[in-house]
């Protein structure tokens, strides 16, 4: 019993610790040479994941590694590197894990194209359903009955009419 409790304390403590890492705004005071660079910095830091945190981008995290990575990105922007070069630099060191924007390759084609395939398939099914129900049901039926069947139908209708009137007189009592 005690061991279970201490496991939970540890987990709770870890949770508290990890939540605390996200608790305050990570604000750096970097200068940029123009608005374009500032926008690119924002984009990159929002689309790259902090390798250590509980699902945060490096813009919002104040883990030491996130601060280091923001500094690196700022430095590389200053050196005139392109967005792709910066992302590749980090992926080479931390793996695809740091990209919140998953690459489009053989491993991820289901991720990127799956929903569209599903939508297309669904539209196909929708089209089939609509086309099949297009003919209003009532139109063809009566004409398709043979004389024999029509006679049977009349008989059945007469019987049920008699039945329901009998019911009515019963219920009124």
């Amino acid at each position, binding site marked *: 019993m005690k061991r279970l*409790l201490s*496991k*939970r*304390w540890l*987990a*709770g403590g*870890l*949770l*508290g610790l*990890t*939540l*605390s890492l*996200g*608790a*305050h*705004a*990570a*604000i*750096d*005071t*970097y200068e940029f040479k123009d608005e374009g660079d500032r926008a690119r910095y*924002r984009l990159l830091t*929002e*689309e790259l*994941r902090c390798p250590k*945190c*509980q*699902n*945060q*981008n490096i*813009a*919002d995290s104040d883990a030491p590694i996130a601060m280091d990575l923001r500094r690196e990105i700022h430095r590389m922007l200053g050196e005139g590197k392109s967005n792709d070069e910066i992302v590749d630099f980090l992926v080479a060191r931390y*793996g*695809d*894990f*740091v*990209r*919140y*924007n*998953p690459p489009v390759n053989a*491993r*991820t084609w*289901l*991720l*990127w194209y*799956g*929903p569209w395939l*599903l*939508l297309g398939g*669904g*539209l196909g099914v*929708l089209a089939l*359903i*609509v086309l099949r*129900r*297009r*003919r*209003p*049901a009532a139109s063809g039926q009566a004409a398709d009955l043979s004389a024999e069947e029509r006679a049977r139908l009349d008989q059945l209708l007469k019987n049920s009419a008699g039945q329901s009137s009998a019911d009515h007189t019963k*219920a009124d009592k």
Partner: protein
Amino acid sequence: MIPELGHLAMILALCLAAVQASLPLIGAWRGDRQWMGLARPAAWGQFAFLLFSFLCLTQAFLVDDFSVAYVAKNSNSALPWFYKFSAVWGAHEGSLLLWALILGGWTFAVSVFSRQLPEVMLARVLSVMGMISVGFLLFLIVTSNPFARLLPQSPANGRDLNPLLQDFGLIVHPPMLYMGYVGFSVAFAFAIAALLGGRLDAAWARWSRPWTIVAWAFLGVGIVLGSWWAYYELGWGGWWFWDPVENASLMPWLVGTALLHSLAVTEKRGVFKSWTVLLAIAAFSLSLLGTFLVRSGVLTSVHAFAADPERGTFILIFLLFVVGSSLTLFALRAPVVKSSVGFGLWSRETLLLANNLVLVVACAMVLLGTLYPLVLDALTGAKLSVGPPYFNALFLPLMAILMLALGVGVLVRWKDTPLKWLRGMLLPVLVVSGALGLLGAWLFGDFHWAVLATCLLAAWVVLAGVRDLLDKTRHKGLLKGIAGLSRSYWGMQIAHLGIAVCALGVVLSSQYALERDLRMAPGESVEVGGYQFVFDGAKHHQGPNYTSDRATVHVLQDGREIAVLHPEKRVYQVRAMPMTEAGIDPGFTRDLYVALGEPLEDGAWAVRLHVKPFVRWIWLGGLLMGFGGFLAALDRRYRVKVTTKAREALGLTGVQA
């Protein structure tokens, strides 16, 4: 003593739930009215015991009983009383007890507000809900007992509630969310009861509908509250991160939206019965899946409760049982006989099917993105991250398609619509929407295609609704006609308006937000987006359980002061945890947002300044959708009492004594 009573009450509630889950169901199968009649009292008893149990836990918090482990982990004597109250559901065990309590509450509500239901149906519905209660109560008692004691060495004081949770948001967001999650269990129970009874018809759809709408509305409001809370609490102005826990709440909402539209078709036209039942099963299954994802540690998230594989296994088994058996029942008992009801291409049936398709694809996409890293890891060991760039790239186009269909959907008629008439209705709407779209894209700032598209679509949705309103009141005249329209209709109009408002908020705030991170010394001023922010330094301040540096920032526009903001940097003593409180000037057309970073030399601070246009529209739109839902659920037709004679004539038994 009281925690032990609470524990006992939970166990008694489990016993009653077990009775509720089994006997009425067997009674329904055997036609035993006494056993069926056990459902109501069992439900009432279970709710009463759960309420008592919850009150016991609350009492333990309010009197600072730190011998209870859960209280010691999540509270502190210096915590203000209203946070002690909300701390009851601040972590895993207590939030589960809240879940169970709310489930008991919904069960109670169903047992009270379902006088017109046939006895057999009600017995089955309550039984199914009882089974779910049994699952949750077992989970609570066996793995997550909130009343576990820390004896003999109980701490003198607690570890305090996480400072991020010491906020109004915790008081409202989880309860609203759980009302939604649990509420879908009602639609689920109705679906299962209908499958069991072999009676899947328009009447079933009519009974299900108000319950589903209310649950959906609660869930929507819960999601909105969570987004708003994250925005002002976390300090960086974000409001949605596509985090796994956030996705876990969005998925049932998307399917729930599809469900309430599908129920409309089944109720009115008696078609798509199997599909509607499947959606009802799916909505609640996604609620349960969400519970699993959040509490099992399978996915990484800032929101996740403490990860514990033992608990995860329990929930997974529960999930397998509930979803597996319901889908098996569906495969065996869902009607396959196609009704001979036909409808044309341009009919409400078709458009609502399209609505369902887009929503289900959107939900599938969110599920795919959320679980892809897990699947890839399990299959290949490779690590991948899927985040906002992916979700935004797919979700926004799907929503655009939905809004496009919406405009057509409100105008088309049931069964079929003359194409010429439809064209005549829609063409003016299209033209004006196009014009408004162009106007919007030019008016708000730099031109963006996304802004043009969104303004056009929002106008399209709103104007199509207006067109329909004019069409519906064309005989009586506008004023008289409006008085004659049902609450259900107004609910629909308001909810659709909500989508337009929300879409505008999302796109305008994303495209036109301005942000500056910089160093500000006392007396310095910076211009952002036409506003002048003047920093006045920070002063030390003492709160009830924290110390803080409280800054003053004056905001001027055209030389006139329009707001004074007080961003804070707090340190909560017990956990020694720092926290940012942003200073926000809320506005209908824009928010001004200031957050403090680190102190620099000479009283200067790193400061973040945001101007966020129309960000409040996001939550306003969500609230409108929720309000529309509640309004529609209050429609008179759900509350009309059916006379006894009519019921007997229809062959419905079960008149209560």
